[in-house]
């Protein structure tokens, strides 16, 4: 026990050494949860105290409103991110890409598209490894359309987007986003499968010999918790500047843009607002952390939900860097079909919500 402790320093994934570790782990998790809850409960008070008593601002005034918004929302969103990314990091140790591939191989379309989209949410995915994932899927017998359902759902519905939507915009719109995002992934993948575009996959993909040296490490409870920690370091460490900048811009819009100012441009009256939102969104490469605080502020100033939702989906789901990466395995007609079909799906969602809400 003692030797394990001296070696553990920064908490490396040593195998669990009996029950002692698990007690420690449970205790540490309970303490962490308590600290987290404590912090979460005092943010609102802290923000009010900082804005009014320390800075002496009136929260009904412009600057006061913007500052209070910023000092309340930023720590709240960061705390939510911390907790959710940690938990998702643990959950994802149960869903490796290898396991997902095994579940999807030889799966028929339709049911396969649904399963692939759902697995896209929980399987760890980074657009930087889109190429090995694509080859691994296609070459082990996952149909092309099913592979696309996965590739559309994985970046679109990610924990960062869901946390920010939930924390800043609310549960109703979060559910709309997740529901319509899943539908787009399922249907677009299915359509791509129907179009029989397999010939537009780069031919070198089929010459790749895939090894079977899948990693077969037994993970202990401790390893899984460590994976949660690594996810926090990796993801929160990367997105926190976007959270700050996004919320700062959002705060500025809150304090300074007059109510209803955007109703004309981004309102539901303008038919071209939805396609314009999608077109502007594709080259814009920002992650959810930067875009959602701005989206929330726009909604508050009279922008129509459908147009804003379309913009957000386009920014997150269709990104130029990912297309460049996918170009290594897909020929231009297939990339065009992928972008076109997803863009049409997003536009339909935009028009639908502009019409019914």
């Amino acid at each position, binding site marked *: 026990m003692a030797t394990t402790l001296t070696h553990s320093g920064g908490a490396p994934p040593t195998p669990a050494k009996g029950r002692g570790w698990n007690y420690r782990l449970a205790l540490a998790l309970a303490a962490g949860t308590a600290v987290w809850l404590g912090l979460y409960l005092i943010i609102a008070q802290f923000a009010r105290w900082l804005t009014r008593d320390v800075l002496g601002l009136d929260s009904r005034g412009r600057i006061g409103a913007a500052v209070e918004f910023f000092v309340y929302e930023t720590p709240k969103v960061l705390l939510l991110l911390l907790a959710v990314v940690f938990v998702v990091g643990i959950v994802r140790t149960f869903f490796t890409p290898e396991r997902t591939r095994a579940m999807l191989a030889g799966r028929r379309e339709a049911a396969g598209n649904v399963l692939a989209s759902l697995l896209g949410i929980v399987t760890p995915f980074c657009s930087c490894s889109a190429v090995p994932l694509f080859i691994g899927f296609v070459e082990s017998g996952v149909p092309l359309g099913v592979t696309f359902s996965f590739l559309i759902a994985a970046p679109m519905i990610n924990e960062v987007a869901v946390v920010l939507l939930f924390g800043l915009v609310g549960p109703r719109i979060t559910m709309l986003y997740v529901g319509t995002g899943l539908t787009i992934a399922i249907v677009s993948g299915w359509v791509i499968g129907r179009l029989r575009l397999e010939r537009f996959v780069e031919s070198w993909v089929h010459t790749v010999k895939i090894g079977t040296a*899948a990693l077969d490490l037994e993970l202990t409870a401790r390893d899984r918790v460590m994976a949660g920690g690594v996810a926090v370091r990796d993801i929160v460490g990367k997105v926190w500047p976007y959270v700050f900048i996004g919320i700062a811009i959002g705060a500025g819009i809150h304090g300074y843009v007059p109510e209803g100012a955007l109703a004309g441009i981004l309102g539901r009256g303008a038919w071209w607002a939805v396609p314009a939102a999608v077109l502007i969104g594709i080259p814009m490469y920002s992650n959810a952390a930067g875009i959602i605080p701005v989206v929330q502020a726009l909604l508050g100033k009279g922008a129509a939900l459908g147009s804003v939702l379309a913009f957000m989906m386009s920014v997150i789901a269709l990104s130029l860097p990912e297309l460049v990466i996918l170009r290594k395995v897909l020929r231009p007609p297939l990339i065009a079909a992928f972008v076109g079909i997803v863009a049409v799906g997003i536009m339909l969602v935009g028009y639908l919500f502009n019409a019914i809400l």
Partner: protein
Amino acid sequence: MKIEILGPGCKRCQQLAENTKAAVKALGLDAEVVKVEDMQAIMSYGIMATPALVVDGQVRMSGKVIPASHIEALLQR
């Protein structure tokens, strides 16, 4: 000992290579750290997410950038 870092040369892969070198140095191991960037070679290991860490031909970790301390523990296992 031969340690290979699999990845197409992205930032995350470089980070993992650096962490690995640090871990090897900290443990004082006699190990060669090589980066494998060719996609055909990467796929031959059967991984689906980069970056990945291969020790003496065996895949030990894939799809994550793990800190040097975790790599140390992994190399000692």
